[in-house]
Protein backbone atom coordinates (compact mmCIF):
# COMPACT_ATOMS: atom_id res chain seq x y z
CA UNK A 1 0.00 0.00 0.00
CA UNK A 2 2.73 2.42 1.04
CA UNK A 3 4.73 1.32 -1.98
CA UNK A 4 1.80 2.13 -4.29
CA UNK A 5 1.29 5.56 -2.76
CA UNK A 6 5.00 6.32 -3.05
CA UNK A 7 4.97 5.19 -6.68
CA UNK A 8 1.97 7.44 -7.45
CA UNK A 9 3.60 10.38 -5.66
CA UNK A 10 6.91 10.04 -7.45
CA UNK A 11 5.17 9.59 -10.82
CA UNK A 12 3.72 13.08 -10.45
CA UNK A 13 7.21 14.55 -10.74
CA UNK A 14 7.22 14.37 -14.57
CA UNK A 15 3.67 15.82 -14.56
CA UNK A 16 4.85 18.81 -12.54
CA UNK A 17 7.80 19.23 -14.91
CA UNK A 18 5.52 19.22 -17.97
CA UNK A 19 3.17 21.77 -16.39
CA UNK A 20 6.03 24.04 -15.33
CA UNK A 21 7.62 23.87 -18.80
CA UNK A 22 4.32 24.60 -20.55
CA UNK A 23 3.52 27.47 -18.17
CA UNK A 24 6.96 29.08 -18.56
CA UNK A 25 6.97 28.80 -22.36
CA UNK A 26 3.44 30.18 -22.73
CA UNK A 27 4.18 33.10 -20.42
CA UNK A 28 7.37 34.04 -22.28
CA UNK A 29 5.49 33.78 -25.57
CA UNK A 30 2.70 36.05 -24.33
CA UNK A 31 4.99 38.62 -22.68
CA UNK A 32 7.35 38.72 -25.65
CA UNK A 33 4.61 39.43 -28.18
CA UNK A 34 3.09 42.12 -26.08
CA UNK A 35 4.50 45.59 -25.84
CA UNK A 36 1.51 47.63 -26.91
CA UNK A 37 -1.53 49.32 -25.38
CA UNK A 38 -4.23 47.13 -23.91
CA UNK A 39 -1.81 44.26 -23.73
CA UNK A 40 -1.77 41.94 -20.76
CA UNK A 41 -4.77 43.87 -19.58
CA UNK A 42 -6.77 40.73 -19.08
CA UNK A 43 -4.22 38.17 -18.04
CA UNK A 44 -3.31 36.80 -14.70
CA UNK A 45 -1.76 38.31 -11.61
CA UNK A 46 0.10 40.72 -13.91
CA UNK A 47 -3.02 42.94 -13.82
CA UNK A 48 -2.44 43.53 -10.12
CA UNK A 49 0.79 45.46 -10.85
CA UNK A 50 1.16 48.75 -12.76
CA UNK A 51 1.06 48.67 -16.58
CA UNK A 52 4.78 49.03 -17.16
CA UNK A 53 5.62 46.15 -14.82
CA UNK A 54 3.17 43.67 -16.33
CA UNK A 55 5.47 42.11 -18.93
CA UNK A 56 8.42 41.91 -16.47
CA UNK A 57 6.10 40.37 -13.84
CA UNK A 58 5.08 37.68 -16.28
CA UNK A 59 8.71 37.05 -17.22
CA UNK A 60 9.75 36.84 -13.56
CA UNK A 61 7.03 34.26 -13.03
CA UNK A 62 8.26 32.31 -16.07
CA UNK A 63 11.85 32.52 -14.74
CA UNK A 64 10.70 31.11 -11.39
CA UNK A 65 8.97 28.23 -13.15
CA UNK A 66 12.08 27.54 -15.24
CA UNK A 67 14.30 27.51 -12.12
CA UNK A 68 11.96 25.03 -10.41
CA UNK A 69 11.79 22.92 -13.56
CA UNK A 70 15.58 22.77 -13.83
CA UNK A 71 15.93 21.91 -10.14
CA UNK A 72 13.30 19.15 -10.28
CA UNK A 73 14.77 17.66 -13.44
CA UNK A 74 18.41 17.80 -12.45
CA UNK A 75 18.28 16.95 -8.76
CA UNK A 76 16.35 14.87 -6.30
CA UNK A 77 16.99 17.28 -3.42
CA UNK A 78 13.87 17.89 -1.31
CA UNK A 79 14.52 21.67 -1.32
CA UNK A 80 13.32 21.92 -4.93
CA UNK A 81 10.25 19.85 -4.16
CA UNK A 82 9.41 22.03 -1.15
CA UNK A 83 9.96 25.09 -3.34
CA UNK A 84 7.55 23.69 -5.95
CA UNK A 85 4.94 23.02 -3.26
CA UNK A 86 5.41 26.58 -1.97
CA UNK A 87 5.15 28.00 -5.48
CA UNK A 88 1.86 26.26 -6.22
CA UNK A 89 0.45 27.11 -2.78
CA UNK A 90 1.31 30.76 -3.38
CA UNK A 91 -0.27 30.56 -6.85
CA UNK A 92 -3.49 29.27 -5.28
CA UNK A 93 -3.57 32.25 -2.95
CA UNK A 94 -2.77 34.72 -5.76
CA UNK A 95 -5.54 33.29 -7.96
CA UNK A 96 -7.98 33.50 -5.06
CA UNK A 97 -7.03 37.14 -4.56
CA UNK A 98 -7.23 37.79 -8.30
CA UNK A 99 -10.70 36.31 -8.45
CA UNK A 100 -11.78 38.60 -5.61
CA UNK A 101 -10.18 41.78 -6.97
CA UNK A 102 -10.53 41.36 -10.74
CA UNK A 103 -13.23 38.82 -11.56
CA UNK A 104 -13.01 39.65 -15.26
CA UNK A 105 -9.43 38.56 -15.90
CA UNK A 106 -8.10 35.13 -16.70
CA UNK A 107 -5.44 33.35 -14.64
CA UNK A 108 -2.76 33.70 -17.35
CA UNK A 109 -1.34 30.36 -16.13
CA UNK A 110 -0.68 29.36 -19.74
CA UNK A 111 -0.41 32.88 -21.16
CA UNK A 112 -3.14 34.13 -23.44
CA UNK A 113 -4.87 30.74 -23.66
CA UNK A 114 -5.91 31.19 -20.02
CA UNK A 115 -8.16 34.17 -20.71
CA UNK A 116 -11.32 32.72 -19.14
CA UNK A 117 -12.07 34.31 -15.75
CA UNK A 118 -10.56 32.51 -12.77
CA UNK A 119 -13.10 29.97 -11.57
CA UNK A 120 -13.24 27.13 -9.14
CA UNK A 121 -11.57 24.82 -11.67
CA UNK A 122 -8.47 27.00 -12.01
CA UNK A 123 -8.28 27.21 -8.22
CA UNK A 124 -8.79 23.45 -7.96
CA UNK A 125 -5.96 22.89 -10.40
CA UNK A 126 -3.40 24.86 -8.39
CA UNK A 127 -4.61 23.10 -5.22
CA UNK A 128 -4.07 19.69 -6.85
CA UNK A 129 -0.65 20.83 -8.08
CA UNK A 130 0.22 21.90 -4.53
CA UNK A 131 -0.81 18.46 -3.25
CA UNK A 132 1.19 16.72 -5.98
CA UNK A 133 4.31 18.77 -5.22
CA UNK A 134 3.92 18.14 -1.49
CA UNK A 135 3.56 14.40 -2.20
CA UNK A 136 6.87 14.28 -4.05
CA UNK A 137 8.68 15.56 -0.94
CA UNK A 138 8.28 12.12 0.66
CA UNK A 139 9.17 10.25 -2.52
CA UNK A 140 12.67 8.82 -3.05
CA UNK A 141 15.27 11.50 -3.87
CA UNK A 142 15.71 10.74 -7.56
CA UNK A 143 16.03 13.43 -10.23
CA UNK A 144 13.10 14.04 -12.57
CA UNK A 145 15.29 13.30 -15.55
CA UNK A 146 16.31 9.83 -14.35
CA UNK A 147 12.65 9.12 -13.61
CA UNK A 148 11.65 10.17 -17.11
CA UNK A 149 14.31 8.08 -18.80
CA UNK A 150 13.57 4.97 -16.73
CA UNK A 151 9.80 5.17 -16.62
CA UNK A 152 7.93 1.92 -16.00
CA UNK A 153 4.36 1.14 -17.06
CA UNK A 154 2.89 1.65 -13.57
CA UNK A 155 4.72 5.03 -13.37
CA UNK A 156 3.38 6.05 -16.78
CA UNK A 157 -0.17 5.07 -15.77
CA UNK A 158 0.05 7.06 -12.54
CA UNK A 159 1.45 10.07 -14.41
CA UNK A 160 -1.32 9.80 -17.02
CA UNK A 161 -3.85 9.70 -14.18
CA UNK A 162 -2.40 12.93 -12.81
CA UNK A 163 -2.56 14.55 -16.23
CA UNK A 164 -6.21 13.53 -16.67
CA UNK A 165 -7.12 15.10 -13.32
CA UNK A 166 -5.32 18.32 -14.32
CA UNK A 167 -6.95 18.31 -17.77
CA UNK A 168 -10.38 18.01 -16.17
CA UNK A 169 -9.55 21.08 -14.08
CA UNK A 170 -8.30 23.12 -17.07
CA UNK A 171 -10.80 25.57 -18.59
CA UNK A 172 -8.21 26.23 -21.30
CA UNK A 173 -9.12 22.92 -22.97
CA UNK A 174 -12.69 24.06 -23.69
CA UNK A 175 -11.48 27.32 -25.21
CA UNK A 176 -8.88 25.46 -27.28
CA UNK A 177 -11.59 23.10 -28.57
CA UNK A 178 -13.84 26.05 -29.42
CA UNK A 179 -10.97 27.68 -31.30
CA UNK A 180 -10.39 24.55 -33.35
CA UNK A 181 -14.11 24.37 -34.11
CA UNK A 182 -14.72 28.06 -34.83
CA UNK A 183 -11.23 29.14 -35.82
CA UNK A 184 -11.67 32.40 -33.92
CA UNK A 185 -11.17 33.41 -30.31
CA UNK A 186 -14.26 33.99 -28.20
CA UNK A 187 -14.24 37.78 -28.62
CA UNK A 188 -14.45 37.45 -32.40
CA UNK A 189 -17.23 34.90 -32.52
CA UNK A 190 -20.73 36.28 -33.09
CA UNK A 191 -23.12 35.29 -30.32
CA UNK A 192 -26.84 36.13 -30.29
CA UNK A 193 -27.91 38.07 -27.16
CA UNK A 194 -30.75 35.57 -26.63
CA UNK A 195 -28.26 32.78 -26.00
CA UNK A 196 -26.42 34.85 -23.38
CA UNK A 197 -29.76 35.79 -21.78
CA UNK A 198 -30.68 32.12 -21.61
CA UNK A 199 -27.36 31.35 -19.85
CA UNK A 200 -27.93 34.24 -17.46
CA UNK A 201 -31.40 33.03 -16.51
CA UNK A 202 -30.07 29.54 -15.88
CA UNK A 203 -27.44 30.83 -13.43
CA UNK A 204 -27.55 30.83 -9.63
CA UNK A 205 -26.56 34.51 -9.63
CA UNK A 206 -29.75 35.33 -11.54
CA UNK A 207 -31.92 33.33 -9.16
CA UNK A 208 -30.32 35.03 -6.15
CA UNK A 209 -30.96 38.53 -7.52
CA UNK A 210 -34.20 38.03 -9.39
CA UNK A 211 -36.31 39.42 -6.56
CA UNK A 212 -34.41 42.73 -6.70
CA UNK A 213 -35.50 43.38 -10.28
CA UNK A 214 -38.37 45.75 -11.00
CA UNK A 215 -38.82 44.40 -14.50
CA UNK A 216 -38.16 41.11 -16.24
CA UNK A 217 -36.89 42.79 -19.38
CA UNK A 218 -33.44 44.39 -19.57
CA UNK A 219 -33.32 48.13 -20.28
CA UNK A 220 -29.90 47.93 -21.92
CA UNK A 221 -27.63 45.21 -23.21
CA UNK A 222 -24.27 45.29 -24.91
CA UNK A 223 -21.33 43.10 -25.69
CA UNK A 224 -17.69 43.79 -24.91
CA UNK A 225 -15.10 41.19 -25.93
CA UNK A 226 -16.23 37.89 -24.42
CA UNK A 227 -18.74 39.43 -22.00
CA UNK A 228 -22.37 40.41 -22.52
CA UNK A 229 -23.97 42.84 -20.11
CA UNK A 230 -27.65 43.08 -19.20
CA UNK A 231 -29.02 45.99 -17.18
CA UNK A 232 -32.29 45.74 -15.27
CA UNK A 233 -34.04 48.41 -13.20
CA UNK A 234 -34.20 47.31 -9.60
CA UNK A 235 -34.36 48.22 -5.92
CA UNK A 236 -31.58 47.87 -3.40
CA UNK A 237 -32.00 46.36 0.06
CA UNK A 238 -32.75 49.86 1.38
CA UNK A 239 -35.37 50.32 -1.36
CA UNK A 240 -33.30 52.81 -3.37
CA UNK A 241 -33.70 52.65 -7.15
CA UNK A 242 -30.63 50.99 -8.66
CA UNK A 243 -29.44 49.46 -11.90
CA UNK A 244 -28.75 45.75 -11.56
CA UNK A 245 -26.08 44.85 -14.10
CA UNK A 246 -25.25 41.27 -14.96
CA UNK A 247 -22.16 40.27 -16.93
CA UNK A 248 -22.21 36.88 -18.64
CA UNK A 249 -19.06 35.27 -20.04
CA UNK A 250 -19.76 33.97 -23.51
CA UNK A 251 -17.54 30.89 -23.59
CA UNK A 252 -17.88 27.54 -21.85
CA UNK A 253 -20.90 25.48 -20.86
CA UNK A 254 -21.17 26.93 -17.36
CA UNK A 255 -20.04 30.49 -17.89
CA UNK A 256 -19.09 32.92 -15.17
CA UNK A 257 -21.85 35.39 -14.27
CA UNK A 258 -21.10 38.57 -12.32
CA UNK A 259 -23.52 41.06 -10.88
CA UNK A 260 -23.36 44.57 -9.43
CA UNK A 261 -25.86 47.09 -8.14
CA UNK A 262 -25.19 50.68 -9.17
CA UNK A 263 -27.12 53.72 -7.99
CA UNK A 264 -28.08 56.75 -10.05
CA UNK A 265 -24.85 58.56 -9.19
CA UNK A 266 -22.75 55.67 -10.49
CA UNK A 267 -21.68 54.38 -7.09
CA UNK A 268 -21.76 50.60 -6.53
CA UNK A 269 -24.33 49.62 -3.93
CA UNK A 270 -23.63 46.77 -1.56
CA UNK A 271 -26.12 43.98 -2.02
CA UNK A 272 -25.75 43.34 1.71
CA UNK A 273 -25.84 39.83 3.10
CA UNK A 274 -27.28 38.68 -0.18
CA UNK A 275 -23.92 38.39 -1.92
CA UNK A 276 -22.49 36.27 0.87
CA UNK A 277 -25.09 33.60 0.30
CA UNK A 278 -24.64 33.53 -3.45
CA UNK A 279 -22.71 30.60 -4.78
CA UNK A 280 -20.71 31.98 -7.69
CA UNK A 281 -21.51 30.08 -10.83
CA UNK A 282 -18.02 30.56 -12.23
CA UNK A 283 -16.98 27.08 -13.08
CA UNK A 284 -15.35 28.07 -16.34
Amino acid sequence: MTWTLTMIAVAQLPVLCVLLAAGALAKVWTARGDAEPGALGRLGPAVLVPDRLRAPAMLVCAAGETALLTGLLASGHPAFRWAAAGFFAMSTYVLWELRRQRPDVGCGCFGEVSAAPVGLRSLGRTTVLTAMATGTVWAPPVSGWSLLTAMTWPDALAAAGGLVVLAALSPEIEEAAARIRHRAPCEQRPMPPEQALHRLRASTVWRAHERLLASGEPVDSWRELCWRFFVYPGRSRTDEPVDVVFAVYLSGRHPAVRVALVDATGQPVDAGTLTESIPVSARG
Partner: protein
Amino acid sequence: MPYRSVDRRRILAAAALGRSLDEPGPAPDEGDAFQAVTGELLDVSPHLILIETPEGRHERLVIAPWATAWRGENVAPADLPRGANVIIRALRSGRVVDRIWADITRITGVIRSIGAESRDQTVELYCGPHRGHRTIVVPYGASGRLRVRHPKFEPGYLFDAIGVREDGVAKARLPATSQPPYRWTAVPKPPPGYGGTQSRISGTATWSDAFDYAERGAAYPMLERSDADCQDTGVSCTGLPYLALGSTLTVRNVCAGRTSALPLAACGCMAGRFCDRCLECGTSPRGRIVELSATSFVELGGDLTKGCFNARIGPG
Protein backbone atom coordinates in the same frame (compact mmCIF):
# COMPACT_ATOMS: atom_id res chain seq x y z
CA MET B 1 -33.41 47.77 -26.92
CA PRO B 2 -33.17 51.33 -25.62
CA TYR B 3 -29.63 52.52 -25.53
CA ARG B 4 -28.94 54.82 -22.59
CA SER B 5 -25.57 56.48 -22.47
CA VAL B 6 -21.99 55.74 -23.27
CA ASP B 7 -20.81 56.91 -19.86
CA ARG B 8 -23.35 54.86 -17.97
CA ARG B 9 -22.28 51.67 -19.78
CA ARG B 10 -18.68 52.30 -18.83
CA ILE B 11 -19.61 52.73 -15.15
CA LEU B 12 -21.85 49.66 -15.08
CA ALA B 13 -19.32 47.42 -16.83
CA ALA B 14 -16.57 48.53 -14.43
CA ALA B 15 -18.81 47.81 -11.43
CA ALA B 16 -19.81 44.36 -12.69
CA LEU B 17 -16.28 43.26 -13.49
CA GLY B 18 -14.49 45.07 -10.67
CA ARG B 19 -12.38 47.15 -13.05
CA SER B 20 -10.98 50.52 -12.15
CA LEU B 21 -12.92 53.36 -13.70
CA ASP B 22 -10.22 55.18 -15.65
CA GLU B 23 -11.28 58.35 -17.39
CA PRO B 24 -10.60 58.37 -21.14
CA GLY B 25 -7.80 60.68 -22.21
CA PRO B 26 -4.23 60.85 -23.48
CA ALA B 27 -1.57 58.64 -21.95
CA PRO B 28 0.59 60.57 -19.48
CA ASP B 29 4.33 61.15 -20.00
CA GLU B 30 4.28 61.53 -23.76
CA GLY B 31 5.85 64.96 -23.95
CA ASP B 32 4.12 68.16 -25.00
CA ALA B 33 0.55 67.08 -25.76
CA PHE B 34 -1.22 68.32 -28.87
CA GLN B 35 -4.50 69.99 -28.19
CA ALA B 36 -7.21 70.46 -30.79
CA VAL B 37 -9.07 73.76 -30.66
CA THR B 38 -12.13 74.18 -32.85
CA GLY B 39 -14.33 77.11 -33.62
CA GLU B 40 -15.30 79.86 -36.02
CA LEU B 41 -12.56 82.17 -37.15
CA LEU B 42 -13.31 85.74 -36.07
CA ASP B 43 -10.04 87.46 -36.89
CA VAL B 44 -6.55 86.54 -37.97
CA SER B 45 -3.25 88.34 -38.39
CA PRO B 46 0.18 86.88 -39.22
CA HIS B 47 0.85 86.35 -35.50
CA LEU B 48 -2.52 86.00 -33.76
CA ILE B 49 -5.78 84.19 -34.41
CA LEU B 50 -9.10 84.83 -32.67
CA ILE B 51 -11.80 82.17 -32.77
CA GLU B 52 -15.19 81.60 -31.17
CA THR B 53 -15.51 78.06 -29.80
CA PRO B 54 -18.75 76.06 -30.09
CA GLU B 55 -19.41 76.93 -26.40
CA GLY B 56 -19.32 80.62 -27.30
CA ARG B 57 -15.93 81.38 -25.72
CA HIS B 58 -13.45 83.63 -27.51
CA GLU B 59 -9.96 82.13 -27.76
CA ARG B 60 -6.91 84.09 -28.80
CA LEU B 61 -3.92 81.99 -29.87
CA VAL B 62 -0.40 82.84 -30.96
CA ILE B 63 0.54 81.57 -34.43
CA ALA B 64 3.94 79.87 -34.44
CA PRO B 65 6.33 81.09 -37.18
CA TRP B 66 6.35 77.63 -38.78
CA ALA B 67 2.56 77.21 -38.68
CA THR B 68 0.73 76.46 -41.94
CA ALA B 69 -2.93 76.39 -42.86
CA TRP B 70 -5.05 74.38 -45.28
CA ARG B 71 -8.25 75.36 -47.00
CA GLY B 72 -8.50 73.27 -50.14
CA GLU B 73 -4.78 73.91 -50.56
CA ASN B 74 -1.94 75.13 -48.37
CA VAL B 75 -2.32 78.82 -47.53
CA ALA B 76 -0.75 81.28 -45.12
CA PRO B 77 -2.75 81.44 -41.86
CA ALA B 78 -3.36 85.17 -42.37
CA ASP B 79 -5.12 84.47 -45.69
CA LEU B 80 -7.91 82.41 -44.13
CA PRO B 81 -11.35 83.98 -44.58
CA ARG B 82 -13.33 85.27 -41.57
CA GLY B 83 -16.21 82.96 -40.69
CA ALA B 84 -14.35 79.78 -41.64
CA ASN B 85 -14.76 76.78 -39.34
CA VAL B 86 -11.29 75.89 -38.21
CA ILE B 87 -9.67 73.08 -36.34
CA ILE B 88 -6.32 74.01 -34.87
CA ARG B 89 -3.52 71.75 -33.67
CA ALA B 90 -2.11 73.71 -30.76
CA LEU B 91 0.94 73.28 -28.53
CA ARG B 92 1.80 74.63 -25.10
CA SER B 93 -1.52 73.85 -23.41
CA GLY B 94 -3.46 74.99 -26.43
CA ARG B 95 -1.97 78.50 -26.68
CA VAL B 96 0.38 78.19 -29.72
CA VAL B 97 -0.93 77.33 -33.19
CA ASP B 98 1.02 74.62 -35.01
CA ARG B 99 -1.37 73.82 -37.90
CA ILE B 100 -4.80 75.01 -39.03
CA TRP B 101 -7.38 73.27 -41.18
CA ALA B 102 -10.28 75.42 -42.32
CA ASP B 103 -13.72 74.22 -43.53
CA ILE B 104 -12.27 70.73 -43.94
CA THR B 105 -14.60 67.80 -44.47
CA ARG B 106 -14.17 64.08 -45.00
CA ILE B 107 -16.32 62.48 -47.66
CA THR B 108 -16.51 58.71 -47.08
CA GLY B 109 -19.21 56.53 -48.58
CA VAL B 110 -20.49 54.38 -51.39
CA ILE B 111 -21.08 55.94 -54.81
CA ARG B 112 -24.81 55.85 -55.58
CA SER B 113 -25.01 57.98 -58.70
CA ILE B 114 -22.86 60.37 -60.67
CA GLY B 115 -24.21 63.40 -62.48
CA ALA B 116 -22.56 66.26 -64.29
CA GLU B 117 -23.05 69.97 -63.87
CA SER B 118 -21.05 71.71 -66.56
CA ARG B 119 -17.48 70.50 -66.05
CA ASP B 120 -17.91 69.61 -62.36
CA GLN B 121 -19.43 66.30 -61.34
CA THR B 122 -22.12 65.80 -58.70
CA VAL B 123 -21.85 62.53 -56.81
CA GLU B 124 -24.49 61.09 -54.53
CA LEU B 125 -23.05 58.93 -51.77
CA TYR B 126 -24.50 56.55 -49.20
CA CYS B 127 -22.57 57.21 -46.00
CA GLY B 128 -24.06 54.54 -43.71
CA PRO B 129 -27.38 54.34 -41.84
CA HIS B 130 -26.41 57.10 -39.41
CA ARG B 131 -25.19 59.69 -41.91
CA GLY B 132 -27.56 58.73 -44.69
CA HIS B 133 -27.18 60.10 -48.19
CA ARG B 134 -24.94 62.99 -49.10
CA THR B 135 -24.42 64.90 -52.31
CA ILE B 136 -20.98 66.24 -53.04
CA VAL B 137 -19.25 68.02 -55.89
CA VAL B 138 -16.05 66.87 -57.58
CA PRO B 139 -14.65 70.05 -59.14
CA TYR B 140 -13.11 69.67 -62.57
CA GLY B 141 -9.71 70.81 -61.24
CA ALA B 142 -9.57 68.02 -58.68
CA SER B 143 -11.16 65.26 -60.74
CA GLY B 144 -7.90 64.03 -62.31
CA ARG B 145 -6.24 63.52 -58.96
CA LEU B 146 -9.34 61.86 -57.50
CA ARG B 147 -9.99 59.59 -60.49
CA VAL B 148 -6.42 58.29 -60.49
CA ARG B 149 -6.96 56.97 -56.97
CA HIS B 150 -10.58 55.94 -57.65
CA PRO B 151 -10.34 53.86 -60.84
CA LYS B 152 -13.83 52.37 -60.29
CA PHE B 153 -15.68 55.67 -60.31
CA GLU B 154 -19.09 54.08 -60.63
CA PRO B 155 -22.08 53.19 -58.43
CA GLY B 156 -21.52 50.44 -55.86
CA TYR B 157 -17.86 51.24 -55.24
CA LEU B 158 -16.34 53.02 -52.26
CA PHE B 159 -15.26 56.64 -52.30
CA ASP B 160 -13.08 58.47 -49.81
CA ALA B 161 -11.87 62.03 -50.22
CA ILE B 162 -10.96 65.10 -48.26
CA GLY B 163 -12.60 68.33 -49.24
CA VAL B 164 -13.78 71.74 -48.19
CA ARG B 165 -17.20 73.04 -47.32
CA GLU B 166 -18.03 76.11 -49.37
CA ASP B 167 -21.46 77.74 -49.20
CA GLY B 168 -22.90 74.60 -47.62
CA VAL B 169 -21.59 72.35 -50.41
CA ALA B 170 -18.89 69.72 -49.84
CA LYS B 171 -16.29 69.87 -52.60
CA ALA B 172 -13.80 67.01 -52.86
CA ARG B 173 -10.18 68.08 -53.24
CA LEU B 174 -7.83 65.24 -52.33
CA PRO B 175 -8.19 61.47 -52.48
CA ALA B 176 -7.98 60.06 -48.96
CA THR B 177 -7.08 56.54 -50.03
CA SER B 178 -6.56 54.26 -52.98
CA GLN B 179 -10.02 52.94 -53.70
CA PRO B 180 -10.54 49.26 -52.79
CA PRO B 181 -11.10 47.26 -56.00
CA TYR B 182 -14.22 45.40 -54.78
CA ARG B 183 -17.86 46.47 -54.52
CA TRP B 184 -18.85 47.69 -51.06
CA THR B 185 -20.85 44.53 -50.36
CA ALA B 186 -17.92 42.23 -51.23
CA VAL B 187 -15.50 43.03 -48.40
CA PRO B 188 -12.82 40.30 -48.08
CA LYS B 189 -13.18 38.01 -45.09
CA PRO B 190 -10.68 38.41 -42.24
CA PRO B 191 -7.95 35.80 -42.03
CA PRO B 192 -8.78 32.91 -39.66
CA GLY B 193 -7.92 33.80 -36.07
CA TYR B 194 -5.42 31.04 -35.44
CA GLY B 195 -3.23 33.49 -33.57
CA GLY B 196 -5.27 33.27 -30.40
CA THR B 197 -6.60 36.06 -28.25
CA GLN B 198 -5.57 39.41 -29.60
CA SER B 199 -4.72 42.10 -27.14
CA ARG B 200 -3.56 44.51 -29.82
CA ILE B 201 -4.52 44.97 -33.42
CA SER B 202 -2.62 46.91 -36.04
CA GLY B 203 -4.16 48.67 -38.99
CA THR B 204 -5.28 52.03 -40.25
CA ALA B 205 -6.92 54.81 -38.23
CA THR B 206 -8.80 57.46 -40.17
CA TRP B 207 -11.01 60.37 -39.19
CA SER B 208 -14.59 61.18 -39.91
CA ASP B 209 -16.75 64.28 -39.68
CA ALA B 210 -19.71 62.24 -38.46
CA PHE B 211 -18.91 63.43 -34.93
CA ASP B 212 -19.82 66.72 -33.30
CA TYR B 213 -17.30 69.40 -33.96
CA ALA B 214 -15.29 69.27 -30.74
CA GLU B 215 -16.23 65.73 -29.73
CA ARG B 216 -13.55 63.27 -28.63
CA GLY B 217 -14.33 59.71 -29.53
CA ALA B 218 -14.04 56.89 -31.99
CA ALA B 219 -16.20 54.84 -34.32
CA TYR B 220 -15.51 51.13 -34.48
CA PRO B 221 -16.61 48.63 -37.12
CA MET B 222 -17.07 45.48 -35.05
CA LEU B 223 -20.24 45.99 -33.02
CA GLU B 224 -23.01 43.44 -32.62
CA ARG B 225 -25.82 44.42 -34.98
CA SER B 226 -28.48 44.04 -32.31
CA ASP B 227 -26.61 46.42 -29.96
CA ALA B 228 -25.78 49.16 -32.42
CA ASP B 229 -29.12 49.28 -34.23
CA CYS B 230 -27.17 49.16 -37.47
CA GLN B 231 -27.43 46.42 -40.06
CA ASP B 232 -24.21 47.45 -41.81
CA THR B 233 -21.92 46.92 -38.83
CA GLY B 234 -19.92 43.81 -37.91
CA VAL B 235 -17.98 43.80 -41.19
CA SER B 236 -14.20 44.10 -41.36
CA CYS B 237 -11.36 42.49 -43.26
CA THR B 238 -9.32 42.49 -40.05
CA GLY B 239 -10.07 40.03 -37.25
CA LEU B 240 -11.47 42.52 -34.74
CA PRO B 241 -12.97 41.69 -31.34
CA TYR B 242 -16.54 42.73 -30.61
CA LEU B 243 -16.93 45.93 -28.61
CA ALA B 244 -19.91 48.18 -27.91
CA LEU B 245 -20.83 51.83 -27.85
CA GLY B 246 -19.53 52.88 -24.45
CA SER B 247 -16.42 50.66 -24.48
CA THR B 248 -13.06 52.34 -24.13
CA LEU B 249 -10.47 51.81 -26.82
CA THR B 250 -6.78 52.56 -26.46
CA VAL B 251 -5.49 53.98 -29.73
CA ARG B 252 -1.78 54.42 -30.42
CA ASN B 253 -0.52 56.47 -33.34
CA VAL B 254 2.49 54.38 -34.29
CA CYS B 255 3.86 57.16 -36.51
CA ALA B 256 3.78 59.90 -33.85
CA GLY B 257 4.18 57.64 -30.79
CA ARG B 258 1.11 59.06 -29.05
CA THR B 259 -1.54 57.06 -27.20
CA SER B 260 -5.00 57.94 -26.00
CA ALA B 261 -7.95 56.10 -24.47
CA LEU B 262 -11.13 57.03 -26.32
CA PRO B 263 -14.79 56.15 -25.81
CA LEU B 264 -16.57 54.40 -28.67
CA ALA B 265 -19.28 56.85 -29.61
CA ALA B 266 -20.41 55.71 -33.04
CA CYS B 267 -20.73 52.77 -35.34
CA GLY B 268 -17.91 52.60 -37.90
CA CYS B 269 -19.90 50.59 -40.41
CA MET B 270 -18.42 52.38 -43.42
CA ALA B 271 -14.83 52.22 -42.12
CA GLY B 272 -15.09 48.44 -41.84
CA ARG B 273 -15.72 48.21 -45.58
CA PHE B 274 -12.32 49.68 -46.43
CA CYS B 275 -9.65 47.02 -46.65
CA ASP B 276 -6.95 49.54 -47.52
CA ARG B 277 -3.57 50.44 -46.12
CA CYS B 278 -2.10 53.65 -44.73
CA LEU B 279 1.27 54.74 -46.05
CA GLU B 280 1.88 57.46 -43.50
CA CYS B 281 5.00 55.90 -41.95
CA GLY B 282 5.75 52.58 -43.53
CA THR B 283 2.90 50.44 -44.78
CA SER B 284 0.19 49.54 -42.31
CA PRO B 285 -1.45 46.10 -42.23
CA ARG B 286 -4.69 45.94 -44.21
CA GLY B 287 -7.94 47.25 -42.82
CA ARG B 288 -9.44 50.29 -41.13
CA ILE B 289 -9.68 49.37 -37.51
CA VAL B 290 -10.94 52.64 -36.10
CA GLU B 291 -12.37 55.96 -37.26
CA LEU B 292 -11.68 58.93 -35.00
CA SER B 293 -13.36 62.26 -34.50
CA ALA B 294 -11.34 65.07 -36.08
CA THR B 295 -10.41 66.40 -32.63
CA SER B 296 -9.12 63.04 -31.39
CA PHE B 297 -7.29 62.45 -34.67
CA VAL B 298 -5.47 65.77 -34.39
CA GLU B 299 -4.64 65.25 -30.70
CA LEU B 300 -3.07 61.90 -31.55
CA GLY B 301 -0.74 63.70 -33.94
CA GLY B 302 -2.59 62.93 -37.19
CA ASP B 303 -2.69 65.27 -40.18
CA LEU B 304 -6.28 65.72 -41.37
CA THR B 305 -5.24 66.23 -45.01
CA LYS B 306 -3.28 62.97 -45.05
CA GLY B 307 -6.37 61.27 -43.74
CA CYS B 308 -4.87 58.31 -41.86
CA PHE B 309 -2.13 57.06 -39.63
CA ASN B 310 -0.81 53.62 -38.77
CA ALA B 311 -2.45 52.63 -35.54
CA ARG B 312 -2.43 49.95 -32.93
CA ILE B 313 -5.51 49.53 -30.82
CA GLY B 314 -6.42 47.52 -27.75
CA PRO B 315 -9.53 47.34 -25.61
CA GLY B 316 -9.55 49.29 -22.36
